[in-house]
């Protein structure tokens, strides 16, 4: 049987479809680290009674990566490799369970709560900003013995992020404050 010369079949061009989203991955450190200006802690000096001090972080964006926010006092050089002990100023962590980026059409993740009508009974937008509170009593009390001011450094360590997440600008908040109780 003679062989027929084979000509390559015309290639079917695959229509470009939307890209698919891979699973979130653990990224770790490398995101931007934030350090506050010096903050007065004279409320915690030995002559004051201090039963509890909380670092309250308000207006936290949680629309993208999930992360651990490690809190260091008086250690602006802290990063994700810094030991989490008192010697290095570690005061505790908070955790953000992130949205994982926008999986909707344009505008799906835009929060517009201030523009609600009076009779709008729908649930609030899931990306309404969050708050976290971390009790830091012992660290503040210790530091107040020798310091009038402290800086607070937040080191984000990313536990889960997909391709929709900004892995540089991770920790974003509106406001922080130290709240003490006596």
């Amino acid at each position, binding site marked *: 049987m003679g062989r027929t010369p084979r000509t390559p079949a015309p290639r079917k061009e695959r229509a470009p479809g939307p890209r698919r*989203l891979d699973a*979130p991955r653990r990224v770790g450190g490398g995101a931007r680290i934030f350090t506050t200006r010096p903050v007065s802690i004279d409320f915690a000096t030995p002559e004051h009674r201090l039963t509890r001090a909380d670092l309250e972080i308000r207006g936290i964006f949680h629309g993208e990566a*999930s992360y651990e926010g490690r809190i260091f006092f008086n250690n602006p050089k802290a990063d994700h490799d810094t030991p989490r002990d008192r010697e290095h100023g570690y005061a505790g962590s908070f*955790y953000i369970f992130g*949205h994982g980026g926008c999986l909707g059409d344009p505008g799906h993740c835009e929060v517009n709560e201030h523009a609600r009508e009076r009779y709008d009974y729908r*649930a609030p937008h*899931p990306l309404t900003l969050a*708050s976290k509170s971390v009790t830091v009593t012992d660290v503040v009390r210790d530091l107040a013995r020798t310091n009038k001011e402290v800086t607070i450094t937040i080191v984000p360590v990313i536990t889960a992020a*997909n391709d929709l997440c900004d892995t540089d600008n991770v920790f974003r908040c509106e406001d922080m404050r130290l709240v003490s109780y006596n």
Partner: protein
Amino acid sequence: MADIRMRQGVHNLDASQVAAFRDAYRQMMRINDNRGYQVLAGRHGVPDWYCWHHQQNARVAQNMRLFLPWHRAYLYTWEMAMRDRVPGVTLPWWDWTLGPPRQNGLPAIFTQRTGADGQPDPLLGFRINLPQANPPVVRPTRRSPGSPSELPRQANVDDCMSRTEWADFSDALEDIHDQVHGWVSGDMGVIGTAAFDPIFWSHHTMIDRIWWLWQARNGNGNVPTDLLDEVLAPFNLQVRDVLNVHDLGYEYAAAQSVVPIGGTG
């Protein structure tokens, strides 16, 4: 309490209970309508986004902390769907505070590729099928767990339980919850896809159990009255309906040890 169903720890399930648990998930994973795994898991994040996290404000001036009530209603609905498939089965909790030799990170039953029957293990993962998402999510779930030493410890739970005020407790427990989601990482690590991972339900059962233990000490802990009438959409329940787990027909089994001593002979 005769008709009350008992939820147990994953670490305490016997072989027949594990088999029933697997069977319920396996059957749910085969159903594509609103009785099945795909649709019910999609209530949490993508595509329905009903879940409540953090302190979202709605129409009231105070912060809305519906994280615990909403997830209790969700687990209740999920467990009912499980029992539609396998009567008698209940949701077991994953106690992530347990260390070796009882457990080391993820419970073993969630990490096996095949069950005792040789079939693919439905507790390992689920194939998400959301071609309509933007971008589409059509693939098996994945995990990337951290070191077991990074999981919350009993001391963290104790600290949480020591808080007597509702908002303080709810926020502290939610933070531990957030930590575990991040520890499992992969799809469990973000709100959008977390509920598709089969471990999600046992993690949240642990959270619900801690809330119930706290309620046993503190009552309802002054849950703000404004919250009681809030609807836990899309479930047919309000906050006041989920405060007592007995009203939902379940209870958490206490850890029990029996040491035979014998009589005088």
